[in-house]
């Protein structure tokens, strides 16, 4: 496919065009502003062979391509957001030409107005919390039959002194089976209990932080393989803060950090307000089961 399209990164209000300063967009393109209705659209011209519909469908599933595009998109939005209130637009939004972009700015003026009312003077901050591994006295949590354990049950009486038992194993074949079941039951109970405690921790952290924010939105917990963190992630929330709230928020996080020795908290930001564009999507304070997945 030949031809080009116009990629839209975001829309800013009152942006000094110099702030873009030849910023680089997706696929090495140069970013420019399209001005209409008092708003500036941040755009660049891309090739249809990369951003046509079929190409996009394929490219979005290629992590390297997705990463490059996401980073470039973010760079542009982030740079504008440091200079003026900026509403990010969903990744991979494309138009025929600048004239169409100008038309959209005019058509969607009221909607952008509402977005700017919500985000002006505010930034998004990310908070992730991890449960620190607590040393347990119990056996490993996977409670499958250990190697060497007789699957038939009962024939190998006390041949294997299984590790991590609390209750003394009663003598006799039936006793082994019963003890095994009880151990599994205990383990399940302990695990449920631990999960409940973790959920409570997450809710407590969130409740305290939400008090110091304008709005909050939960993200799904990140896959440990992608976050690179083995500890379970118990909270992954974006908070929308007034600019003057940010230092206080930081102090609250630090205080929380000192108090909760079994939780590790990571803060990122300021982010452009990606997560606070649609008011309908903002989540209410969560129940205790809200965070972990």
């Amino acid at each position: 496919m030949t031809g080009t399209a116009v990629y839209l990164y975001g829309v800013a209000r009152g942006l000094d065009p110099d702030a873009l300063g030849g910023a680089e967009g997706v696929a090495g393109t140069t970013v420019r502003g399209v001005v209409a209705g008092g708003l500036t659209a941040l755009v660049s011209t891309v090739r249809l062979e990369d951003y046509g519909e079929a190409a996009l469908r394929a490219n979005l599933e290629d992590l390297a391509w997705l990463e490059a595009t996401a980073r470039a998109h973010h760079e542009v939005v982030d740079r504008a957001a440091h200079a003026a209130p900026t509403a990010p637009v969903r990744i991979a939004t494309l138009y025929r030409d600048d004239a169409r972009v100008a038309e959209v700015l005019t058509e969607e003026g009221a909607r952008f107005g509402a977005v700017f009312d919500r985000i002006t003077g505010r930034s998004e901050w990310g908070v992730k919390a991890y449960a620190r591994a607590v040393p347990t006295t119990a056996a490993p949590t996977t409670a499958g039959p250990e190697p060497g354990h007789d699957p038939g049950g009962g024939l190998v009486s006390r041949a294997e002194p299984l590790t991590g038992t609390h209750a003394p194993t009663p003598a006799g074949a039936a006793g082994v089976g019963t003890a095994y079941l009880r151990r599994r039951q205990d383990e399940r109970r302990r695990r449920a209990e631990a999960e409940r405690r973790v959920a409570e921790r997450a809710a407590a952290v969130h409740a305290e932080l939400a008090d110091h924010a304008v709005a909050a939105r939960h993200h799904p917990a990140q896959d440990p393989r992608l976050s690179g963190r083995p500890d379970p992630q118990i909270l992954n929330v974006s908070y929308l803060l007034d600019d003057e709230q940010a230092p206080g928020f930081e102090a609250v996080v630090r205080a929380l950090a000192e108090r909760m020795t079994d939780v590790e908290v990571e803060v990122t930001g300021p982010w452009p307000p990606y997560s606070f564009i649609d008011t309908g999507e903002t989540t209410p304070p969560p129940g205790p089961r809200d965070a972990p997945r």
Partner: protein
Amino acid sequence: MTAVLDTGPGAPAERVALVDLLDRLLSGGVVITGDLVISIAEIDLVHVSLRALVTAVRDGLDPEEEQ
């Protein structure tokens, strides 16, 4: 506990983590219908990217880690 604060407008000390970025970029931002890829709005970006991530994770890990 540790609180990592990574501030500094315009001068990120390190690149933002891709996972954090995708949390925001794929489910956030203003959704407007574009001209060329009208149906992209209907593609569930989160699922699309999850497939990409899962594939990459599978390919990127060494086999023993995967066990």
